[in-house]
């Protein structure tokens, strides 16, 4: 270790609101929010909007109803702004990274320089990693040209605040209000960055939009904010996340994603969430407390969430759809896998307001090890939602005796013409199934992954092709050691 590394370069106490500073010390108050807003050169309205959210947040409580357990979070121990990482923040080399994580990268066939990026390795003299960055920058540039031709806007939300202020101001917080919940309020106050997408009327986005190609992906931070607006008659498919487990210094992640679909528009949002789940005892994993919601504002609009959740120590996440437009459609397809000490409380809310609105929920929960996996779903039909229909299918698969699966369906039906169907099942990977596979030459680890993939088929079908293949592989790696 070099001598300069031993000398603290930051103030260990005291508050710095100096605009030139690159990192804030831990703690949260109004001056921190003003600092973040100033740092991004935000307009007055947005600074005020953040401050208002902060005022709400201070009066709010963390939700306690989820079926998860964790030590209280000290919100004053978190630093709410940091510029690109300095060498002191991350591990200096892959040798300092959890060897389990490295093994996983190897299994997924991830090249070394990408492993370093994913594991957050910060090198004094970056070498190969530079190529990778250059690569993605050039890909992203061609990508942008093609999108611009179609009139599609796809940029960091911090940029959209300046380039498309009227859209951002109109829709930011329109789907997830500031006061929606504790974590969403916190996100409104301190959000770092994220994606903004606008698809003009009648445009079918010429390619799938992937966060992978977003230039500033490296530093969106723990309070990510995404806003997607699909104008009349448009279509977009958006992919979030990546199959490789991502390590992060920040334990708490509280993102907000808002989707808006106008008349006849369709948004397909697919996520592969694979944040670091912690070691075998759950130590060091990410808390993923996310608010995702879509509004089908226009008639015949459609929003579809597909998620594959395998990471995080704790997942708290309910991608939802508010069905306002007549004949609008909401879908939720989910695979949530927990192993070791992971805890997941995830599901959806389908809020039927418009007439003849339809929703489909297919949830597949897989629990292994000592993990706890809960499905929590709300289907609500309001008196205006005549002819509304919901179909929910919620299946749990248990691997081994130490895990738990729980289902919490909530149905609030206020319309006598609505039809709501709910089916649920719990099954186990049985010894006889494993023996059949083994007897045909397939070892237990492969057998479990094959059985689990079969269980998830209805959801994988909904994923874009390349994601589906990777998702299968990801389950296999995540389940390693699940059967003794």
């Amino acid at each position, binding site marked *: 270790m070099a001598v300069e590394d031993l000398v603290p370069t930051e103030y260990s106490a005291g508050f710095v609101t100096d605009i030139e500073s690159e990192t804030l010390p831990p703690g949260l108050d109004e001056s921190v929010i003003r600092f973040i807003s100033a740092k991004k050169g935000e307009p007055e309205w947005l600074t005020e909007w953040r401050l208002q959210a902060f005022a709400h947040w201070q009066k709010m409580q963390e939700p306690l109803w989820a079926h998860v357990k964790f030590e209280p979070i000290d919100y004053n121990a978190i630093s709410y702004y940091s510029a690109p990482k300095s060498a002191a923040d991350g591990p200096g080399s892959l040798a300092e990274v959890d060897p389990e994580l490295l093994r996983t990268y190897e299994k997924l066939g991830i090249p070394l320089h990408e492993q370093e990026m994913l594991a957050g390795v910060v090198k004094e003299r970056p070498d190969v990693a530079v190529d990778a960055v250059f690569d993605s920058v050039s890909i992203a540039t061609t990508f942008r040209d093609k999108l611009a031709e179609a009139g599609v806007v796809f940029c960091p939300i911090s940029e959209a605040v300046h380039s498309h202020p009227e859209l951002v101001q109109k829709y930011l917080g329109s789907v997830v209000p500031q006061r929606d919940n504790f974590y969403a309020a916190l996100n409104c106050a301190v959000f770092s960055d994220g994606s903004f997408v606008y698809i003009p009327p009648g445009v079918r986005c010429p390619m799938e939009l992937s966060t992978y190609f977003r230039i500033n992906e490296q530093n969106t931070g723990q309070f990510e904010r995404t806003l997607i607006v699909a104008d009349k008659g448009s279509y977009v498919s958006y992919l979030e996340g990546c199959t490789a487990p991502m390590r992060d210094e920040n334990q708490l992640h509280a993102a907000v994603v808002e989707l808006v679909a106008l008349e006849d528009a369709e948004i397909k949002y697919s996520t592969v969430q694979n944040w670091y789940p912690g070691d075998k005892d759950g130590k060091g994993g990410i808390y993923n407390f996310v608010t995702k919601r879509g509004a089908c504002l226009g008639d015949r609009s459609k929003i579809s969430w597909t998620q594959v959740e395998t990471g995080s120590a704790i997942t708290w996440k309910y991608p939802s759809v508010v069905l306002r437009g007549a004949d609008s459609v909401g879908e939720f397809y989910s695979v949530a896998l927990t192993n070791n000490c992971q805890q997941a409380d995830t599901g959806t809310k389908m809020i039927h307001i418009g007439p003849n609105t339809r929703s489909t929920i297919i949830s597949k929960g897989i629990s292994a090890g000592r993990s706890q996996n809960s499905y929590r779903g709300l289907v609500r039909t309001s008196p205006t939602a005549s002819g509304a229909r919901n179909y929910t299918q919620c299946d749990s698969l248990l691997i081994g005796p130490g895990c738990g699966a729980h289902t919490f369906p909530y149905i609030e039906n206020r319309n006598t013409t609505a039809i709501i169907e709910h089916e649920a099942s719990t099954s186990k990977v049985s*010894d006889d*199934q494993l023996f059949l596979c083994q*007897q*045909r*030459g397939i070892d*237990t680890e*492969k057998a479990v992954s*094959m059985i689990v993939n*079969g269980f998830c088929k209805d959801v994988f079908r909904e994923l874009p092709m390349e994601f589906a293949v990777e998702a299968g592989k990801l389950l296999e790696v995540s389940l390693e050691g699940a059967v003794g």
Partner: protein
Amino acid sequence: MSLLEVRNLEVDVDGKRILKGLNLTLEPGSVHAIMGPNGSGKSTLANVLAGKPGYDIVSGEVIFDGNVVNETEPEALAQAGLFLAFQYPVEIPGVSNMEFLKASLDNLHAARGDAQPNAVEFMKTVRSIAAELDLNPEFLKRGVNEGFSGGEKKRNEILQLLLLQPKLAVLDETDSGLDIDALQVVADGVNRFRSDTNTVLMITHYQRLLNYIVPDAVHVLADGVIVKSGGRELAEELEARGYAWLTN
């Protein structure tokens, strides 16, 4: 060299002695039948041969293809050429039959260091075997045994047998629950499998099957031991007289 030799095999299940000193020798290319009353230990023998966990070999030896396999994992036994057609095939929902067959064949090939079968050739082979067994090709797309009728399940076992081409096929009551037509189809399949080297151990409760698949030898298993062995005519005697005269 014998393909299979079972010497003085004693096996406990849940602390209860089920096999009580069983002896059996199979030469390559032979077809033997094991008959016996319900609960005599036929499925136990089949499962032990296939290495199923939960069976405690207290004494004796199982020698397969020259190796003692008492402690061998089921997948290793399968890779060495042992196949078990299950009495009650289980379902694996969502895993298509085709996918399962491919995984099975790929793993067996990999274990032997052989090249992976070409996917197109593989599909052709599977379809033609399915046709021989009167199975609708649609059925290959369905989940393994998912919603299959009893007869379809048994024919599916024979399909796997014909595709995987093991050295030894242990058939556990493959005839039970089959009507005459299905029995003929299944028997034709097994007869096609027979060769100078391919060996069959056929477990059955009824001698009916032996009219279709003619065995070289018949053994009677009662209360965990082989109480009588003989030729084809032993089965007919059992049909006429039942098992009681042998077990008392």
